[in-house]
């Protein structure tokens, strides 16, 4: 390992892109990953192409994980956590703990904090009361189903009615998420189109507030043309049953409550600060933005501590990729 | 018979509103068919076009069928396309036609052979229709063949060409009309008219250019038997059928009657337009209606022109023979 190694905290999309870009320029990196494998959440995401590509951005990721694992200039420490950090730019010393104990890594020039994000905490939302159960899945779970789809579909049995609950845990002060997560409209409507592609008969209903991050008015019309229903409201609760029911105020009815049955309810969860945020903020001397995401306190060029990916706020896959390359570029420029 | 003029020419020169129709030769050697078709028109028209392998389908020749019609007392307008014959064949056929007593000639490019029943055939297009008109004019006036060599007794047809009020590009079609008249066309038969308003505009341009004074404009009217026939017609290049006419045909319970009344309205409309010298009626697949249509349009009786009645072909041949001798 070269003297000027870079420590990457978190081996998800941002961490891996940064590490690979640095390594491809001859800079050794160490990735500290808390999980058993690299890849973070993106690794479970499914392709959103229906009859044609829907530009979800996942293709950019490709075989990133394999390339990182195989790269000789990248050391990957899985099931490990950063517990302490001492020193200054160009000469940090990190203490990393895994199941066998702690070890000290010397000679770290820069740190990349790329710990990613968490989904909606424990699948509850202050605005939608929900007590768990069969027939209700998170957006991430739907991603996993998409990732495992075969030629003939996604589900073992074609669902006849699917509801998407948008902004689940986003744009919500009580949920401490007073922001839009930016990705959910994109992934959930694309997923809906994949479902529509495989199951032309299935009723698909969105409970939503606004359609975000999908440019142009035409996209909404495309969705409607694909027979996807949009109801502009946030439901009150999910009533357990077989099937489950969504309880909501009929828009324009002056508050009349209505219940509708759905075989499958997808909670379009957003992006929240990672559970590890506070700990890492303390170790790496980072601050918080007004939404609770991490931000650097002083100039990264001076501290040698960089943020990459959703650690600093919601981002889409191509944005994370581009930002990570940019971070690698800055570090490389500094080292050079 | 003194000046050899055709009945049609005399009718037009006398200032009558002319009426012509069409005889489609059969796809056989059946002379009776032609005779019968001609007889049906006797007394109803001043002349009748006898088509030349129309829509590029091989049929009895226009000249032969014209001769049969003439024997029945109906004056034919021989059609000659540039598609099937080179200048040798055209000139020889036309000399023959004239010798048989045929006096009217309509010069055409001819529908492209890919439309017809011999799409595999080779086309000729040695000369184009305007060159043909000019060649026959020179033959008439200067007594020469296309090569400039004289003919002792040239053919002197009453010369016609086609006009396309709705074909594109309009400005160039108008230039082409000029050229046809310059080349020597004495009458111009138009493609079927369905849109009176647009035809009026076109006629206005014709009048502005003074072309109506140099050649007789004979407006084409196609009478359709059914909605299907009208729809088929509307797809022909150079014919524009307004949607409201198709709609009328679609809604009616009696398509034949509606087709007839549309044609009557068109004839009445056309007659009111200044500079139109006659009407040319086409009835593809519904020839039997033509006499009725002419009658109901109030175009009867047809003028009886002195000097041309019942030109027998034998007489014409004798006359021709005399002169040549």
């Amino acid at each position, binding site marked *: 390992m070269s003297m000027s190694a870079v420590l990457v905290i978190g081996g998800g999309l941002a961490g891996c892109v940064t590490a690979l870009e640095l390594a491809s320029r001859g800079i050794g990196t160490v990735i500290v990953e808390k999980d058993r494998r690299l890849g973070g959440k993106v690794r479970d995401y499914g392709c959103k192409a229906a*009859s044609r*590509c829907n530009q979800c951005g996942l293709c950019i990721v490709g*075989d990133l994980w394999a390339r990182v694992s195989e790269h000789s200039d990248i050391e990957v420490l899985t099931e490990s956590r950063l517990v302490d950090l001492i020193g200054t730019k160009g000469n940090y010393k990190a203490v990393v703990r895994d199941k066998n104990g702690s070890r000290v890594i010397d000679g770290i020039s820069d740190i990349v904090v790329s710990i990613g994000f968490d989904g909606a905490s424990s699948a509850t939302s202050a605005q939608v009361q929900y007590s768990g159960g069969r027939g209700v899945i998170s957006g991430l779970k739907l991603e996993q189903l998409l990732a495992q789809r075969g030629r003939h579909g996604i589900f073992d049995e074609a669902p006849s009615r699917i509801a998407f609950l948008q902004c689940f845990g986003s744009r919500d002060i009580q949920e401490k998420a007073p922001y839009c*997560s930016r990705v959910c409209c994109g992934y959930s409507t694309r997923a809906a189109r994949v479902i529509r592609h495989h199951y032309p008969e299935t009723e698909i209903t969105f409970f939503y507030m606004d359609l975000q991050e999908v440019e*142009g008015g035409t996209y*909404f019309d495309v969705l409607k043309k694909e027979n996807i229903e949009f109801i502009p409201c946030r439901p009150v609760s999910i009533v357990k049953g077989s099937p489950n029911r969504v309880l909501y105020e009929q828009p*324009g009815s002056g508050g009349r409550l209505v219940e509708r049955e759905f075989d499958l309810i997808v909670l379009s969860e957003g992006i929240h600060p990672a559970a590890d945020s506070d700990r890492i903020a303390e170790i790496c001397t980072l601050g918080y933005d007004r939404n609770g995401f991490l931000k650097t306190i002083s100039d990264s060029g001076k501290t040698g501590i960089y943020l990459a990916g959703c650690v600093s706020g919601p981002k889409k896959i191509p944005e994370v990729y581009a930002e990570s390359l940019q971070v690698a570029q800055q570090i490389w420029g500094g080292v050079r | 018979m003194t000046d050899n003029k055709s009945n049609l020419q005399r009718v037009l020169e006398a200032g009558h509103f002319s009426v012509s129709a069409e005889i489609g030769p059969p796809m056989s050697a059946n002379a009776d068919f032609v005779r019968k078709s001609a007889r049906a028109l006797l007394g109803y028209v001043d002349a009748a076009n006898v088509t030349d392998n129309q829509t590029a389908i091989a049929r009895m020749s226009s000249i032969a069928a014209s001769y049969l019609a003439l024997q029945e007392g109906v004056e034919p307008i021989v059609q000659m396309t540039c598609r099937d014959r080179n200048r040798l064949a055209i000139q020889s056929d036309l000399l023959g036609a004239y010798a048989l007593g045929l006096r009217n000639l309509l010069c055409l490019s001819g529908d492209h052979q890919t439309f017809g029943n011999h799409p595999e055939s080779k086309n000729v297009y040695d000369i184009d229709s305007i060159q043909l008109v000019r060649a026959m004019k020179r033959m008439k006036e200067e007594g020469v063949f296309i090569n400039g060599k004289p003919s002792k007794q040239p053919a002197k047809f009453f010369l016609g060409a086609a006009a396309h009020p709705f074909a594109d590009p309009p400005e160039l079609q108008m230039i082409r009309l000029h050229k046809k008249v310059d080349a020597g066309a004495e009458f111009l038969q138009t493609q079927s008219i369905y849109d009176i308003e647009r035809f009026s505009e076109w006629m206005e341009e014709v009048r502005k250019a003074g072309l109506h004074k140099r050649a007789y404009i004979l407006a084409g009217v196609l009478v359709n038997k059914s909605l299907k026939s009208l729809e088929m017609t509307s797809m022909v290049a150079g014919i524009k059928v307004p949607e409201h006419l198709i709609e009328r045909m679609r809604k009616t319970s009696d398509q034949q009657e509606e087709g007839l009344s549309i044609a009557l309205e068109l004839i009445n409309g056309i007659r009111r337009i200044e500079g139109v010298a006659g009407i040319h009626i086409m009835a593809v697949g519904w020839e039997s209606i033509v006499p009725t249509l002419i009658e109901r349009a109030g175009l009867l009786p047809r003028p009886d022109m002195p000097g041309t009645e019942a030109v027998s072909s034998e007489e014409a041949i004798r006359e021709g023979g005399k002169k040549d001798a």
Partner: protein
Amino acid sequence: MRIAIIGKSPINEPLKERLLSEGLTPVLVENINDILGVVGQKGDFAIRTRYGDVEAGYVIATQGPELSNPVPEVPSLPLSGSSVQNILDKNAKQAVLLLDYPDESPGIMTEIALKKAAELARKRVNVVCLARFIRTSGGYLEQLYREARHFNAVFIKYSELSMDCFENAVVIHARINEGNETISIKTDNLIIAEKISAGEDIREMASRLRIHLDDEGKASGDNPFVFSAMTNRKGVFALHNTSPGLTNETKEMIDYTIAAIKMEMAAGKNSGHAVVDADKCALCYTCYRVCTHAAMAPDPNPDRSAMMNLEEACYGCGICVSQCPAAAVRLTEAGMEVKPEMAMKGSLKIFCCENSAKLAFERAKPELEEIYDKVDITPVSCGGEITTAGILSALHRYRKVLVAVCMDDACKHLEGNKRAKRQVLKAQQLLKSIAMDPGRIEYVQLSHAMPRVMAETVIEALG
């Protein structure tokens, strides 16, 4: 390093400043019509203009955007102008902001609209904002939205809209609550978010710069490249799809573009690329026309009458290789040729795009363990490299051939998958013409994230 800014755009100024601050030298060519073409490759472009060549290492196209009033028939103020000052000057009590309109929702205008709504509301003007969607997803827009509401700006979401005009006043009828209710608002002060279009010259610009535009006229619209401003032509960036003002979004795009330029500058030499055999080249320009990256050009060397590959522009996709009628182009790396000496196994040959099917196959390996010996897989750098001849010659040795490439609209090289499909169809037709089963050639489109689809396809192809 000289960076050419091509086109007329409000972002030219800030872009110029940023470039200067990064130590780069901006060169402006504002009039598209002055440009005859851009030749060369990244790091070494020459912009052919009517007044001579302008050299530049990189090119940023900024043409547009064109703003227009979507509802010219009613009196209104444009959102991006000095509308707020106008209304304040008038001491107006009330104003209506139309953020979008039924057939278009320029989310890019939301930031400006929210700011203006907040500003007016703060000055005690009664503000009503009408929108189909309130697009608050960028950085701090949600806060801005709350702020505007805090100052009593009213936001109403409509589904349909119509407007009547009474002298200077406009009455807006909006269907709200999923069309269950209609409200009417009268105002003398209507502010309308402008319609943003790429502008008339955009196609002209694209053809001169040889960059690909989508149906909406965007080069940087959903493109398959990492940086949104990247185009199909390396070293040429497009920033033409921006907001009229200098919003956060615009600033970010400029930052990303500059980062991307710097990365291109720092990138090592391109290894996988095409090579032209000058002796075989028929100078037919097919490669020039089919190359989606503008990486083929006539060789300027007067001693050689042939096309040449611009190595730095080339992605090594192989489209030119498969399409060259003179077989004069090859790739420095890989290639789909089935060589007799190649280790062959099994009865199924798979030609797969290494961007999609190859990765899906790798991921499907656990499922394919049992049949792994029965297939022989040749990855190609892009489906565009696949040829009819290659498929046919594989059929000499394998019972079946499977061609597996990217989904429609997913090809990194824009047309490689389409070309692959054409080659497959041609090969199938040729088989049919000699009374052989065209089913011996199978074709599938998938993404790298569809391992099960790949596995099922392979198993089915094996029969």
